[in-house]
């Protein structure tokens, strides 16, 4: 089987059947698991597919105090499987401090998008790791101060020289403190090493590191102790390897380190799932409702069926992160809805699902329909189904869907979802927390539109209020997030990090604005971003985007009218903007022509449009009320 699978993949590659080869490689990793052995085979094959499949290119630098070379091929393979084409720069052994502090170092020359600072306690604070028994309380305090100061110096220098993201490994404590069970048990008096405790000292450094990360934009910490604990430090650490090849981690856990890094790299690169599409039978509950009936399916807080409730709790947590839930199930709708609406064990109810497809269509059709209904790309969907045959068919038919391999044991469903990088977010906005409510409100709007006699009636009765404001400390994360994630109504699709947005906001020739829209059903939150730049008498639109939630309600007209008014007030005579077509931004294609712009240039990459502000301008739509921050000008 193993040999056949490999031979088939090589055949597909030699025939140029790239999608089949990709699905085959992803299946191989799902079945055989990620390891140095499978990474070696799949890495070489992914390499041949690179230029034929759609991947997000991303540059990562790893600064380290230990051997990470064997982790890099595993990381790249895991990235390929998740839609990322990672270019990895590994810093020289143990010269991480020089690399960070020297603006001319190879690190900054590489121009990474994310840097991982993987420094371990053994190297950075050997006195805290293995010589703790020799320290006085004062010595230990000074080590804590020294190490914390080093981290501060590094993070500050990094932020000065680079706009990249930085992920810093927190420090691990030894499994056995030097002073045994007395560690940290004293009354805090005296001068002995156990007074504050070895683990406590290391925790202090980590606490300061987390504070530093919170206070520095684009810096995050990685809970290394938590990572080790999940797998057990007896299994994770390999002292022999550390002493012989400077690799402190046992072979079976190298993939776990790579996967942990991906939990950060996936959201930082923007390749994440917006929707989790779920199967029902044997996924949300045990058994098949069509055969077992409402009373027969296994689901509840006790055995049998508790595993499924634990899984549903994990899914509710995803919804709180802003990930929409949807259903794609082959079932009789009446049977399935009865469980969803009435079963006592269900934590998820119909209101939690932004879209449902319960029918006998194949899953690929349902996934396409769900993407269309929710106005997202198919590549924003994650698919969770207990049936490996369904998963493999979706991989084959819709290679851009993120297929999550649920293990056979339902008790592992919840941890699989919690560990899955597609569902990670590094900063959560208010919009994320309330996203599922927005979609519930959208269903009411659709009903209103259906009952309105004309489109004007509908737009008027929505009672929309738009607030427009320059980006500020509170909205920065959401503004950057929108530039990262918005694909459809986006005229230039330029992606910006928080650091870049912040730099533009400080530039006096640049305006970074956000728009918030409320209507009779809900506060839609911050749904649009515009960046404009003044040059002489011309104001150029660098970025203009709207969340798909508010497309088709005239919000873009209001936002544009504001940009035009403001530019005119600043003495500009013309408003210009590029439309740069992508595979996905067709909804924005008519934007300029529909608002009175004229095309003045055509280049291979796109078209340039202009609006005369002296004679034409742009009108504010009468069915939208101007909220705070949107001054009315004559």
């Amino acid at each position: 089987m193993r040999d056949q699978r490999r031979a088939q993949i090589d055949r597909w590659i030699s025939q140029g059947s790239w999608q089949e080869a990709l699905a085959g490689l992803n299946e191989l990793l799902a079945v055989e698991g990620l390891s140095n052995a499978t990474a070696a085979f799949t890495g070489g094959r992914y390499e041949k597919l690179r230029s034929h499949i759609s991947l997000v290119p991303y540059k990562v630098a790893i600064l380290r105090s230990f051997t990470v070379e064997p982790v890099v091929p595993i990381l790249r393979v895991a990235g390929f499987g998740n839609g990322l084409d990672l270019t990895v720069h590994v810093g020289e052994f143990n010269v991480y401090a020089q690399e960070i502090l020297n603006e001319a170092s190879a690190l900054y020359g590489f121009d990474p998008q994310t840097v991982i600072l993987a420094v371990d306690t053994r190297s950075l604070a050997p006195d805290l790791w293995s010589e703790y028994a020799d320290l006085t309380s004062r010595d230990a305090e000074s080590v804590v101060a020294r190490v914390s100061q080093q981290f501060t110096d590094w993070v500050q220098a990094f932020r000065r020289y680079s706009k990249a993201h930085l992920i810093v490994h927190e420090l691990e404590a030894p499994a056995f403190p030097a002073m045994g069970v007395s560690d940290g048990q004293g009354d805090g008096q005296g001068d002995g090493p156990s007074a504050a405790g070895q683990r406590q000292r290391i925790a202090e450094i980590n606490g300061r590191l987390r504070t530093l990360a919170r206070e520095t934009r684009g810096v995050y910490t990685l809970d290394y102790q938590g990572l080790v604990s999940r797998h057990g430090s007896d299994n994770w650490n390999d002292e022999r390897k550390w002493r012989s090849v400077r690799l402190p981690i046992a072979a079976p856990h190298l993939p776990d380190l790579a996967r942990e890094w991906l939990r950060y790299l996936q959201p930082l690169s923007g390749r994440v799932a917006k929707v989790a599409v779920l199967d029902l039978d044997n996924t949300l509950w045990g058994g098949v409702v069509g055969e077992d009936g409402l009373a027969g399916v296994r689901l509840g807080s006790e055995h049998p069926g508790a595993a499924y409730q634990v899984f549903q709790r994990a899914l509710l947590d995803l919804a709180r992160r802003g990930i929409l839930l949807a259903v794609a199930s082959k079932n009789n709708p009446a049977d399935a809805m009865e469980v969803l609406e009435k079963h006592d064990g269900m934590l998820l109810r119909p209101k939690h699902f932004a879209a449902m497809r319960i029918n006998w269509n194949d899953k690929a059709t349902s996934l396409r329909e769900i993407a269309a209904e929710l106005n997202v790309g198919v590549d924003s969907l994650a698919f969770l189904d207990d049936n490996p045959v369904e998963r493999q068919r979706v991989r084959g038919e819709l290679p851009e869907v993120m297929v999550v391999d649920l293990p056979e044991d339902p008790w592992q469903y919840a941890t699989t979802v919690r560990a899955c990088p597609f569902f990670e977010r590094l900063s959560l906005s208010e919009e994320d927390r309330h996203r599922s409510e927005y979609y519930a409100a959208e269903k009411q709007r659709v009903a209103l539109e259906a009952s309105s006699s004309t489109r004007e009636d509908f737009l008027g009765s929505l009672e929309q209020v738009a607030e427009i404001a320059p980006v500020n400390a509170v909205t920065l994360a959401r503004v950057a997030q929108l530039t990262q994630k918005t694909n459809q109504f986006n005229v230039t699709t330029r992606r910006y990090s928080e650091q870049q947005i912040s730099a533009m906001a400080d530039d006096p020739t640049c305006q970074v604005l956000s728009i918030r829209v409320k209507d009779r059903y809900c506060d839609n939150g911050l749904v649009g971003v515009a960046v404009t730049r003044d040059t002489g008498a011309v104001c150029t639109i660098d970025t203009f985007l709207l969340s798909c939630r508010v497309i088709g309600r005239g919000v873009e007209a209001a936002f544009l009218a504001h940009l035009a008014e403001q530019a005119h007030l600043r003495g500009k005579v013309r408003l210009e903007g590029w439309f740069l077509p992508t595979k996905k931004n067709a909804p924005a294609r008519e934007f300029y022509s529909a608002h009175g712009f004229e095309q003045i240039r055509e280049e291979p990459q796109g078209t340039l449009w202009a609006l005369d502000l002296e004679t034409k301008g742009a009108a504010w739509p009468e069915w939208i009320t101007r909220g705070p921050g949107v001054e009315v000008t004559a």
Partner: protein
Amino acid sequence: MTGPVWEQVIQIAADVLGAERASLDEHSGPEKIESWDSVQHLNLMLALESHFSLQFDPDEMDKMTTLGKITQVIQAHAGSPSSS
């Protein structure tokens, strides 16, 4: 060489070294295979450790200079009480 351990060793070595299976035999080692450098040697050791669920001693790693010798070390583990 024959046997289940040998079959698995040669398959993993082919994957890690990016070599055709048919081009490898029990005498294959860093001297004979161009792609078998120190990084690939470590990768091969780690691949074998995770595949066979064992840990090699630094002493053993020094001895594992050909696929034949690698197989002998793994077989010795399989025969010892500490192996899984």
